[in-house]
Every structure is written in structure tokens, then in C-alpha cells.
């Protein structure tokens, strides 16, 4: 009897939370891009432009491989952009939305869920556009779009866990957002964007496979090129990382919420 009341309460809360997140998405878009039509285009244009540029640089500079350096780097960069976009913005999230927390129905995780949703959807849209463009130009289709979508979701979730932690860290220690930015830059060469595990010498591959992002990139490439190389990834390892970062991150946000509320 009491349990049923509890479930109904949670369900009502969940419905309300979804509405709050939806409203926060719209607000976030307005604050970030203004109310112009062109503003929204930037949302897609930024990852697209960066991805195409990185792809072109590598297409021009690299020796040709079995994959085509443009496809390899441009599509890979979109996946990295999910990580970069979510984690870099996380440090400012609390400060920018502090005023909203006076509303009782807005909680701290809602702010993050809304932002992450924007990043994930925009990058997925860019990824689709890019794959379609590649199909139109040289007729190459990804071998398993499902695996690529799964890689995007994994990357978004992994970044979300880290974003919770980064936000809590920034709130706890002043100035630590610089550290987070530095870490995202340092992780770029180690992320698996520029290599396949197969290319690495054995000892380096063993080290690289400790990094969860390398597994996610291998999953993306398995979906994109699949039959042309031997992918090496362990999704259980990535899920473990996602779970642990979410647990610690969400708990840390609860602690942060109490501290922020006091000010």
C-alpha cells in the first residue's frame, strides 16, 4: 500500500523531471545561441566544421591506408566532440545555472541532463549528415550503424559521468576547471581518435586498452569499417567505468547541491 504510493510519487516525479529537462534544453539553447535562426545552425556547424577540417588535414598529410584518412578522422572527431563538448562545458554549468536552483523543481542533475542531451543530439545529427555526405561522395556506407550509434551513446554516458565529477570538483576547488580543460586536451592523442589498437606495438596496446575511450573508439570503427581490421574492445569494461563515474558523480552532485544552496 505504502509501496504503491511511493511508486506513484516517483513516477509523477519522473514525469515532472522530464518536463523540467525539456524546458532546460530550450533555455540552454536560448542562452547559448540567442534567438536567431542562425544561432541554432552553429550547434551543428561547430562539430561539422572541426570534423571536416581535421579530416582534410589528415587526408592531405597521411599516407593512404585501407580506410581513407578523411573518413577515419572526420567521423572519429565527431565522437571525440561529444566527449569534449560535454566535459568542457561541465565546469561552467553550476555557475551559469545557479540562479535556476532557487526554483524548487530544478535540481542540479537536470541542468546536466539537459546540456548533455543537446550535445548528444547535435553530434548525432552531424554524424548522420557526415555519413550521408560520405555516401553521396564516394558511396561508402558504414557496415553496422547500430554499433556506431551504440558507441555514441557509450561516449555520451561516459562523458556524463566524468562531467558530474568535473562539476563537483570545480565547485569544491576554485580554479580546477583549468585542470579539466588541460586533461581534455591531453586525452586527445590518447583517446583512440588517431589510431587503431591493431596498429600499436603490443606493449603500447596493452596500455591503451586501459583507457575506456579507446574501447569506445574501437567500437565506432568496428561499426564503420568492421571487416577491414580486427577490433579489440571490452564493453563490460566501459560499462564499469560508466557505472562507477555515475555513482560517484551523482553522489558528489548531491553534496555540491547542499554547499551551493548555502551561499
Amino acid at each position, binding site marked *: 500500500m505504502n509501496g504503491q504510493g511511493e511508486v506513484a510519487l*516517483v513516477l509523477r516525479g519522473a514525469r515532472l523531471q522530464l518536463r523540467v529537462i525539456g524546458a532546460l534544453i530550450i533555455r540552454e539553447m536560448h542562452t547559448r545561441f540567442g534567438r536567431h535562426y542562425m544561432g541554432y545552425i552553429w550547434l551543428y556547424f561547430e562539430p561539422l566544421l572541426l570534423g571536416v577540417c581535421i579530416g582534410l588535414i589528415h587526408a592531405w598529410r597521411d599516407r593512404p591506408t585501407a580506410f581513407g584518412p578523411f573518413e577515419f578522422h572526420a567521423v572519429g572527431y565527431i565522437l571525440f566532440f561529444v566527449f569534449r563538448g560535454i566535459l568542457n562545458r561541465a565546469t561552467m554549468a553550476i555557475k551559469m545555472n545557479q540562479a535556476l536552483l532557487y526554483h524548487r523543481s530544478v535540481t542540479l542533475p537536470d541542468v546536466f541532463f539537459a546540456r548533455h542531451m543537446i550535445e548528444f543530439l547535435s553530434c548525432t545529427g552531424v554524424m548522420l549528415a557526415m555519413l550521408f555526405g560520405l555516401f553521396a561522395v564516394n558511396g561508402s556506407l558504414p557496415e553496422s550503424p547500430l554499433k556506431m550509434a551504440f558507441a555514441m551513446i557509450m561516449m555520451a554516458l561516459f562523458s556524463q559521468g566524468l562531467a558530474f565529477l568535473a562539476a563537483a570538483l570545480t565547485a569544491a576547488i576554485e580554479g580546477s576547471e583549468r585542470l579539466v580543460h588541460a586533461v581534455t586536451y591531453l586525452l586527445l592523442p590518447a583517446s583512440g581518435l*588517431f589510431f587503431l589498437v591493431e596498429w600499436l*606495438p*603490443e606493449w603500447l596496446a596493452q596500455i591503451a586498452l586501459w583507457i575506456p575511450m579507446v574501447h569506445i573508439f574501437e567500437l565506432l570503427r568496428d561499426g564503420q569499417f568492421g571487416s577491414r581490421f580486427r577490433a579489440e574492445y571490452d564493453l563490460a569494461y566501459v560499462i564499469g567505468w560508466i*557505472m562507477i563515474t555515475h*555513482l560517484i558523480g551523482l553522489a558528489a552532485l*548531491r553534496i555540491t547541491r547542499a554547499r551551493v544552496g548555502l551561499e
Partner: protein
Amino acid sequence: MTTSMKLSPPITLSDASASPLSLSPEPELPPQAWYVRFWRRPFFLIVILPSLIVALYFYAIAAPQYVSEARFVVSSRGSDGGAAAAMRGMAGASAFGGLGGGMASSETNSVRDFLSSLDAVMDANAKLDLIALWRRPEADFLAQLWDTEPELLTRFYNRMVTVSLDPSTNVTTLHVRSFRPEDSKALAETLLASAESLVNRLSERSRNETLRVARQEMDIAEQRVQESRTALVQFREQEQELDSAGAVQAAVVLRGQLEAALAQSRAELTERLKFMRPDNPALQVTRNRIEALERQIVAERTRHTETTVGGGGAVLARQLASYERLMLEREFADKQLASATASLETARLEAQRQQIFLSRIVEPNLAVYPLYPRRFVNVASILVGLAIAYGIGWLLVVGMREHAG
């Protein structure tokens, strides 16, 4: 729930020791309600209960699985360790450039691929009846083989048999699990045997391939020698000339002699004219000789350089050209044969060196203690995983409730 309340012993104990305190039943309720409430809590239902069920399965029901392990190296005498290591280093250096390279030798990889293939499973199934082997009566219902279709059998086989390759040492490890120690050992033996026969097949194939090309070359060269000899014989028969070069030599010598004789005769005539009358009959003899010699020279020249009008008789110049062509052809054919023989010899040596073989390092063992299933690791990982998932879920649900409350 009600029975546990009635049966709880602390009531009677406290009743007996301190009767004034036990007058009211309320203080007695919380200690009973403690564990009753505990196992109704979501944490118990979501985390503890599934872990207990898993633990019950692993510790009480799961059948022990015995491991048999074998290690082997696939090596070829052709590419020694040094060369392979150098190749590996090169592959490593070019890794960032984007040129992929297999770390281990291709034979090792093909043995590994073979051992996890449907082919190997069918091979082992024909020799050992895998279905019965993984459906022994002592096997528990969850771990035993369920489906017997070849593809699903292969999937199950790949769960129970792992083949791993250490690229730095090139040692392949074969790891076989089953419900009886003898079964594991027998299966490992069978798999090793079929891997060995695969390696032998590959070795035989590559050796034959190397020799085949060289033999083909040899056949072609022999054919050519034969043809050139036949052509020469035919030419000799047709022209009725053993050695055209010799004939030409002889003709040149003859012409030289004729020219010399002619010159001498002319000189003699000039000399005699000085002291003889022109109509002297002695001069006539010399004149006749000069004339004969001139005719002879013209005839010789015609015979050797011009075609006769009838066309039948071959002229020495043409004869010499074809003779020389034939001789050249014979010489080339001989040289080709010699080189083909040499390369066949090299190929034979190469083929001897090219043997691939599988050397066993560790023979399949007969297990005494069942290493699988890994009870503690499995139960602990499920417990930890569920606890973390519960934690996340709890945080999310609390967040949702905040919106409603």
C-alpha cells in the same frame, strides 16, 4: 512473518530474567521488525537476493569444470626468430604511419583461426562426439550444452575452448574446459592433433608450390633443347651439309687459292709476253688456264651468293644464316636448361628449409582440481555490479522524488 514473531526466543528469555520490563510488548517488536524490514527493503530485493541466488547456484548446483591446458609454437625453419623479431619491430615503427602489420607469423594466426572455426569443431566432433562430452550426466543444466546445431555448437565450443596467442613470445595457449578431467585432456589432444595435421598440410602445400614452379621451368627448358636439336638435325638432312660454317670456310679458302692461281698465271703471261711472240702456242696454254680460272671463280661466286633461277638449290649465304640461327638457338636452350636445373636445385633446398612445424611445449594435462566455474569472482562481481547499479538507481529515484515532493 507472523510465525517468526511468535517463535522469537528473546521474549521468553527476557520474560524469565526480567519480568517487570516485559509487561509491555511494544519494546520487543523493534528487534524482530529489524530483519523483517530488512528483507523487504529494495536493497535486499535488488542486490542481496540476486547475489544469494547466484551464490547458491555456484556453490551448490554448478558442476565442477576441469581445465586441460596445452601450449605450442608454430615455427618455420625458413624465417628464423631474428627475422621475425625484426619484422615485428618494423610493424611497430610504422604503426603510427597507418600501415598495419600482423605481429605474429601468418602460420600461427591461421592455426589460431582454425582452432576456433566450425571446421575444427566438426573435425573434433567426428573423432570425439562433442555433444555427449558436454552433456555428461554430472553437468548442471545451466552450464551444459543446449543446442546441437553445428553453428550453436561452435558458439558453445568457443566458450569452453579458448586459444590465445602471446605475440611477444609467439606461444599459443590452448585452454579446454569440460566436466571430466579425461574429457578435457582428450579434447585438447584431439585439437592439437588436428592443428598438427593442418600445419603439415600447409607445409606440404607450400613446399609443392615452390617445387612446382621450378619443375615447370625445367620442363620448358628441356622442351626447348629438344626442339633446337631436332631443328638442327632436320636442317642437316635437308641441306646435306654437316657444318655450314665449315663449308663456308672451305669455300673462302678455295676462292683464295683460285684467286692466287689466277694472279700467278696472269703474272706468268705478262712475263712471257716480254720475250715471246704473242701467237706463240706456249702462250696459248697460259691463256687457256687464265680463262679456266676466271670461269671457275665466277662459278664459285655465283654458287655461294646468288639464288639460282630454279629456286631449289640453297645458296651458301642463306644456308649459313639459318645454320647460325639454329646454332644460337641451341646454345640458348642449353644455357636455359642449365639455369633451370640450378634453380630447381635451389628450390629443392628452399623447400627443405620451408618446413612449418608445430612443436608442443606443454602437453595437455589431466586436471585434478576443478578451476572452473570461478565461484568467488563471479559472485563478487555480481554483488559489486548490482550494488553500484542500485546506488545509481537510488540517486536517480531520489532526484525524481525531489521534483514531486
